[in-house]
């Protein structure tokens, strides 16, 4: 956002946080329980973790390595990069629709995957954790929507 020094709104107006944490309120024990619902995915550099069109409604938590989200399989059009600690795939997870992009590993790495199925089981056995998980996903989507809205406003108003 090139005009960020020229955000004329009052500094007290709400601003978009740049990063949000997933399940940070869980205790160690709860987190361990949550982890039992995750599948560990170990990947090699250049391998594809996610293919567009695939019906794979999983959320990924990247533990090690770097991945890039691309529109096309060859990866010429890149959308975002993710690194350790980043969470991705929540759009397909919540929408329960086919994947809209490719995810390719840039390095060797390790990720954890929560499938829709396992999420159903999480909801059944650990409803509190599942609820928090959904709230956090929702919060991040809300923040991203707000960010997108701001970017749209900035892009639409050259004469502001």
């Amino acid at each position, binding site marked *: *956002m*090139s*005009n*960020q*020094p*020229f*955000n*004329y*709104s*009052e*500094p007290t107006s709400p*601003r*978009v*946080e*740049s*990063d*949000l*944490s*997933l*399940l*940070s309120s869980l205790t160690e024990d709860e*987190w361990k329980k949550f982890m039992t619902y995750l*599948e*560990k*995915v*170990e990947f*090699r550099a250049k391998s594809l973790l996610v293919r567009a069109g695939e019906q794979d409604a999983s959320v990924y*938590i990247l*533990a*090690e390595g770097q991945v890039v989200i691309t529109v096309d399989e060859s990866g010429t059009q890149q959308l*975002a990069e*993710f690194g*350790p*600690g*980043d*969470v991705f795939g*929540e759009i397909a997870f919540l929408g329960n629709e086919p994947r809209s992009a490719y995810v390719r590993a840039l390095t060797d790495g*390790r990720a*954890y*995957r929560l499938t829709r*199925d*396992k999420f*159903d*089981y999480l*909801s*059944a*056995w650990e409803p509190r954790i599942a609820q928090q998980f959904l709230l*956090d*996903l929702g919060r*991040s989507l809300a*923040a*991203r929507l707000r*960010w*997108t809205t701001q970017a749209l406003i900035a*892009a639409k108003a*050259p*004469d*502001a």
Partner: protein
Amino acid sequence: MTSAAFKNYLEVESRASPVLWWVMRLLVFGFTLLVIVAIPLSGEQGLGLFWNVMIPCLPLMFAFTPGLWRQICPMALLNQLPRTFNLSRGIRLPGGLSRAAYLASATAFFALVSLRPLFFNTSAWWTVALLALSLGLAAIGGFVFAGRSGWCGTFCPLAPIQRAYGLAPVVQVRNGYCKTCVGCQKNCYDFNPRAALLADFDDKDPWYVLQKRFFTGALPGFLLGFFGYQYLGLGDGILVYYMALIGGMCGSLGLFTVLETFLRVPQVHLSAIFSQTALVLFYSAVSRPFVQTLGSAIEPVQTLVWLDEVMVLTVLLVAIIVLVRHFEAHRVFSEEAKPAHAPKLKVALERLGSHASGLPQLEERASGANLTADPAQTMLETLENAGIKIDYGCRLGLCGADPVAIVEGAENLDEPGEHELATLRRMGLEGRARLACACRIRQGRVAIDLNQDPKTVPAPSSEAPAVDPASAAGIQRIVIVGNGAAGTTAATELRRLSPGVDIDLIGAERYPFYNRMGVARLIHKATGADDLFLLDAQRHADLAIKLHRNTRVTGLNPSTKTLTLGTGETLTYDRLILSTGARAFVPAIPGHDQAGVFVVRTADDAEGIRAYAQSLPRKTRKAVVVGGGVLGVEAADALRQLGFRTTILQNTDRLMSRELDQTASHRLTHFLNLIGIATRTNVRIETIEGEDGRVARVLVRDQSPVEADLVVFCAGVKPEVALAREAGLETDRGILVDDAMRTSDPHIYAVGDAAQTDPPLPALWPNSTHQATIAATQLLGVDPPPAPGPTYVRLKHDGISVFSYGQLAGEGADDGVEITSSEDDERFYRRLKIREHHLVGAIVVGMPGAEKFLMPYLAGAPIPSDVLATWQKGNFA
């Protein structure tokens, strides 16, 4: 988003009190009025002081601390007074004017400066008029337009030069006029002076950028032309004068373009360098007249001689400082101007660290995965937790769906149990592979390769029996009808005992022996029946078992020991084993025979459901499963995974009523409801209604109808006895057999679901294979296998453990200890029956893995007292 490096005026403190600022403004304004009055009165000297001393002070101030001027500028005061007293109309500057304002003020600047030698420098009245006009326009702008958009930030001819010289203010002074920002103009210099030029050149509007480029690019050339004309004494011609100005501007803009094009210096840097060059040029030219004018005004002249050089050096220093600050600011700005990433959801890294220390390791060579194994987990669970796809069946070591070639570290695995050994033996894999569901890694490191066919692992040498028991018993040819678990086990067991006897295995289905317990999976998985094969055609050939696939037996004549096949062939036998199995039972409910009603017994049944499901519209898929036994629940879950809203209709008061008690069944029901499977109990189905030739809903007595695009019956099985009955063998519900599995004809045996023992046994895999082993041994006259322990039933589901073992009620239920877990434990329900340190019955329902603690004791191992004591305390971990 705010930027720490580019603080807008709202984020910086004022350097002086507002009162002080007002005093200073009024003083400067008063001084300006004084100048206006004094110039005409004082004649040439006043005019000279104004143009040669006062005006040349401004550029340095613009470069060093432009905000100071903008606080005290008399034009700004007049411009902002209407706003201060709420008298301004506050009109927003129209888009077109706003876009062109900079160009207008830049043009005005060049034009007015060019008029200096012609009018202002020599005429007091012209100068006074200029000052008065400027003040007037500033005031009018303030009355009409909002914020500072009427003059200061837009039309003021001094605005472009302030932005150019003061592109990186050394000292920032807070904008004191705007109490609140009204956002009146783009990239406002009063809002954020340090970022203004950077944002200008980062703008999306190319015309906007061009305007800035034009002004800063032309400025040094303009000044060169302006001062050069006078120094070089090019005469009085206005034409020549303007040619010098325009020529200078063109040369300067040309140089800008050349540097930009050939050296690829970014515009924003060229603009900064050009404007600071202009600043130095300006002072190089004006320093001498400045000193001279000042000198002639104040005595003595001599002391000021060195001042012009000091002045130029000072300005040079300031220009360098400004440029350095600019480059630093640009670096920060480009960092921040990078497309900011959208907010990311993150997990704290320390939570994702590997907890791998000291635990056994499993290396899977096909995928290259190195996994940490929990000694309490089976190899199958370890692989599944890592998302590695591997087929599984019963998860009990019975079916043999998941043999794994051990490449390294077989000694680090636990010893195979009785069931696993029997299964491996049947598959011819004893000593060559392990079943992933049945083995655990105790310590160290184990390497497996899922791509390696276990059959390619060399077999350990075994001794052939000295005398073939079949030839000893005078048996040449054995025919087995039915190639399910019972029939195939009988065949492999016979072959193990007798290398020479002829074995014919006749299967009605088109597949070789497959894992019938896994067929529900074919509904939602795209893997196909091949995945369920437990003994392929090649293995049958290796074992010299003649497999007849897709072959019907149409007649049996016990007196001639002859079978007639559907193909017209006949087969004679010395001994016959009937393992004709059972077929799915469909009660004679009206409408049960229409399109969309299915059973799940064979692989083809399940594939048929999958095919039919895909012909339905995707949005409205609803399914009904009739029967809430193990198969019913598994089928319902398969349909759920295929996207169906599924309802289980159970005719008793609870799901899995044969295996589970009230509480356990309730827990299972609750779980299924939570994951989206509806359940109804005590249901009496009246009719299955159709629409357009296919099923539409199920009508239920005393309850609302259930919508269904698909109905699956899992309402139990009926033994296949037609062949035996027509042949005159004694039958009841099944084919009656004695303890040796012999029917009423001594040469004919019956095993598996088709056989009826006394007392009858439930149709379970381990019962079938045990009966097959009894038949095989009895038939050849060798020792029968030891009686197996109690059988157990396990629901095959990833999300919940449902496990039922042995007996909790019934005979001898009174002796022994019963342990039941606390009602409060929502995650685990455990009810155990223990007699003399032996487990005789168990029901476990809970989170996946809930029954693990029982595994060591299922084969009959005694339960140590201390373990029993912890169980009694409610601790089962």
